[in-house]
């Protein structure tokens, strides 16, 4: 079902249609909130708030942007606002205090990669980490990131460049040259 007819059903009062939309986008929204807030409990709260706000304003969604971009935009602003309220600015320092654990053979490759990436992204500014994630994971264009974050295009490009550079430094420091080469010498 395309988004337009799904939205029409929701606006007409079909709760199941909204549940379908929530299921489709909740991981993406939750990931954006996690990148900003870096705390599972707060990210879940922000995800809930995002979908409640989206539901409230869905009838006014004009379709000028993609539905996913619109949801990301609400999620990003909700998480940023929650982060400001809770003043979560000490997480990066805490992560630095804990050296990375040795990779466990029991953990799946994806879980391990996620852990490594999360730890590395935790060293970046939340805004830079989110922009990197939107660009590389969600494959949003710079223009779409501008819509989501409300930042200027040149600012987004600077943050992407700075984020990539910092992420590379952190990964090299955390993993060492050998593991770094394993991650990036795949082609």
């Amino acid at each position: 079902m395309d988004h337009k007819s799904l939205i029409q059903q929701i606006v007409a009062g079909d709760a199941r249609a909204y549940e379908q939309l929530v299921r489709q986008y909740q991981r993406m929204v939750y990931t954006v909130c996690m990148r900003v807030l870096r705390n599972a409990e707060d990210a879940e709260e922000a995800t809930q708030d995002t979908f409640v706000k989206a539901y409230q304003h869905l009838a006014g969604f004009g379709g000028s942007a993609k539905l996913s971009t619109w949801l990301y935009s609400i999620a990003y602003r909700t998480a940023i606002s929650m982060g400001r309220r809770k003043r979560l600015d000490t997480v990066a320092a805490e992560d630095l205090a804990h050296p990375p654990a040795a990779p466990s053979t029991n953990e799946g490759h994806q879980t391990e990669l996620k852990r490594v990436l999360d730890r590395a992204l935790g060293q970046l500014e939340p805004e830079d980490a989110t922009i990197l994630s939107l660009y590389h994971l969600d494959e949003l264009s710079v223009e779409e990131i501008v819509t989501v974050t409300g930042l200027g295009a040149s600012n987004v490009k600077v943050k992407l460049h700075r984020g990539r550079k910092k992420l590379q430094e952190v990964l090299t420091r955390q993993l060492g040259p050998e593991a770094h080469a394993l991650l990036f010498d795949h082609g």
Partner: protein
Amino acid sequence: MAEPRDTDLRHLFQQAGYHDPSRDLTSRIMARVAVTPMMQPSVVRPLIGKWGWVAIGTAMAGLLVYALISAPAGIDPNGGLVKQLMPTFQLPQGAWPVWLMAASGCLFLLAVVDRKLARKSAQH
């Protein structure tokens, strides 16, 4: 040591994937949504409708014709800066009262604002 390129980072991010929320997150969201009213979008409509503009246009055209065929009201169309810049230019004979000029200007501005509102309404 290899430098990560854009494709390398994309590969890393996509291999790691999304974060997984708790399993009951959907039901918690839906429980909140069930008690949340959906807001209706505010509809922006033009201040004056199509027929309103036809009536205003007709009235203005009537006033203009009346002003043109009535006696001159004292504005010298042959003096001032216009005369210096364009010596051959002449306004049509007739009255050009200030109030008519001002009213035309106001109507023009109103038409511009109205047009913008109509466009905004179409976007919704």
